[in-house]
């Protein structure tokens, strides 16, 4: 399972598809039930953001490995409007859509590593990963 696999996000239902596939992959890698739920929730947040703010995009999964551990990296990529002020969207409660504004700061807490690259007007790429404990 070290090849990269992606789910395209085009319609609302794809959010469910992406998080189900992510949970399956997490299970295969040996994550426990709580971490499986954390990973599925993080994917759901990222996929919904793509659907809501960029319209379309994709969520890709990659197995990561170092000497002692295995893990899962999730890459959420879109060519939407991008994010102007990254520190602002990482604040709990900041939302431009009347949401709870819990998504991105939540993903950061659910996962072990979190990185955003976004260019205003060009799109957003979020990479986040978690190691099997």
């Amino acid at each position, binding site marked *: 399972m070290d090849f990269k696999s992606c789910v395209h996000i085009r319609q609302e239902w794809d*959010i469910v598809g992406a998080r*189900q596939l992510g949970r399956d992959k997490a299970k295969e890698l040996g994550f426990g039930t709580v971490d499986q739920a954390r990973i*599925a929730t993080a994917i*759901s947040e990222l996929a919904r953001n793509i659907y809501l703010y960029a319209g379309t995009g994709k969520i890709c999964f990659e197995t990561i490995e170092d000497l002692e551990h295995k893990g899962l990296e999730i890459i959420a990529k879109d060519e939407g409007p991008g994010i102007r002020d990254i520190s602002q969207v990482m604040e709990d409660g900041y939302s431009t859509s009347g949401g709870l504004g819990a998504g991105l700061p939540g993903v950061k807490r*659910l996962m072990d590593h979190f990185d955003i690259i976004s260019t205003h007007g060009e799109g957003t790429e979020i990479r986040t990963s978690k190691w099997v404990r």
Partner: protein
Amino acid sequence: MRIPILKLHNYLLISIQIDLDDQTAIQFQEDLLSKIHKSGATGVVIDLTSVEIIDSFIAKVLGDVVTMSDLMGARVVLTGIQPAVAMTLIDLGIHLQDVPTALNLEQGLIKLRQEMED
């Protein structure tokens, strides 16, 4: 997809058995409010035992359902939240503080009865 809502005396009982997509969650919100209105139910138990994920959107819908039902005069209790789901909700920073919860459906019904007495 629609989530079935059962009526038992003055109560409405719902057991969510599927992985909730956004549209189904919104539809459920509407269905429940209109059912409260039509039936005059005074209490609602939403059982989440089979729900494996609650993300920020679903948490918002559930929180809103509780507030809206309350406004209409029906108390809502959420029951059976799985340990893994409780932990991810805390990571998301969602505390559902004003939402009555109980361990299972039976406890939920007991809680409703108590709440209505005081």
